[in-house]
């Protein structure tokens, strides 16, 4: 299963970005292979409107089934949910910790 995590910098050991739509990047972690890839989101950080929806399209294209982030806006939430993606809010701290906590079932 692929997990998308909002990242403050475009690297797998960055901190979780508290914002979904305007996150600097997404880390796509494949829990089967343990590999992480980076998806740039800088275009959405510059958008005047609809950043969350652009970001949702971007995440959906990666095939991710779960999003770990700080907070996700209502429009992006609707779009992600329509794509069958589960959103886990309230995440913070280093991305590897957030992934481990989620996979261990202890993410809050």
């Amino acid at each position, binding site marked *: 299963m692929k997990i998308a995590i909002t990242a403050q910098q475009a690297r797998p050991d960055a901190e979780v970005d508290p914002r979904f739509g305007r996150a600097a990047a997404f880390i796509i972690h494949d829990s089967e292979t343990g590999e992480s890839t980076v998806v740039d989101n800088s275009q959405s950080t510059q*958008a005047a*409107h*609809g*950043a969350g*929806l*652009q970001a*949702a*399209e971007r995440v*959906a*294209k990666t095939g991710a089934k779960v999003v770990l982030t700080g907070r996700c806006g209502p*429009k992006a939430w*609707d*779009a992600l949910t*329509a*794509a*069958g993606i589960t959103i886990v809010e309230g995440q913070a701290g280093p991305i590897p910790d957030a992934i481990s906590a989620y996979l261990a079932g202890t993410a809050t």
Partner: protein
Amino acid sequence: MKIAVASGKGGTGKTTVALALAHAAEGGARLLDCDVEEPNCHLFVRPKREEVLPVTLRAPVIDQERCRLCGKCAEACEFSALAAMPTKVLTFPDLCHGCGACSFVCPSGAITETPIEIGEVRIGSAGDLRLVYGCLHVGKAQAPPVIREVMRHASRRATTIIDAPPGSSCPMVAATRRADFILLVTELTPFGLHDLGLAIDTIEPMGIPMGIVINRVPEGYTDDLALDDRAPVLLRIPESRKIAETYARGGTLLDAMPEMRPQFEELLRLATAGEASRC
């Protein structure tokens, strides 16, 4: 003749100046209140019997049977009002500007543009003054389409005074772009002068002549040096508790200070002649 009253910073006295100009215009003016997020000219004009016209925006509705999920609509939308998700294209009418690009690019004819009501235009009269104002519905974000509908009521013959919204972004541009002259009302505060500069930055490329009105001028003030030299100062309105008190009771500047009427007549003359920008 269309004269727009704009400012940059809000609360500098646009409505005060717009009402005074409308009342000073000979033979009855047409007043267009384009501050559609919070129109207030009607509180002073108190028009009798208003005609109400709905303003709609044509937003996309997708026929999911026909949609082939190509995503061209979402790509074409400048405002992300459509999101192409893997199994469904979602629409967000709140973000739609009604341009129609999505249905134009759709190769399967899956998009129909359906009117949604975003606000209304109200038309009324008091004496020889005709007031047209827009009201954006609560919760809607698209002011420019409502402003454009109000602007359609500009008169070809009568003097038209436009009370523009504050700021220097799309709503302000929508209200001022068809004006023959723009008056910028400012106050002598850092915020007022800073935003006056932004408003001038916005108007300059439109090539519309403009002039400045300074409101709440303290007694003994003579120095206009701190002001923007790209537009001439055409009028100074004194700091006056009487104006504020009258305004708070729904009275206008000319109710409080009828002796200023000739100055507004002169302001109308200057704007009409378009001389202000050239002198």
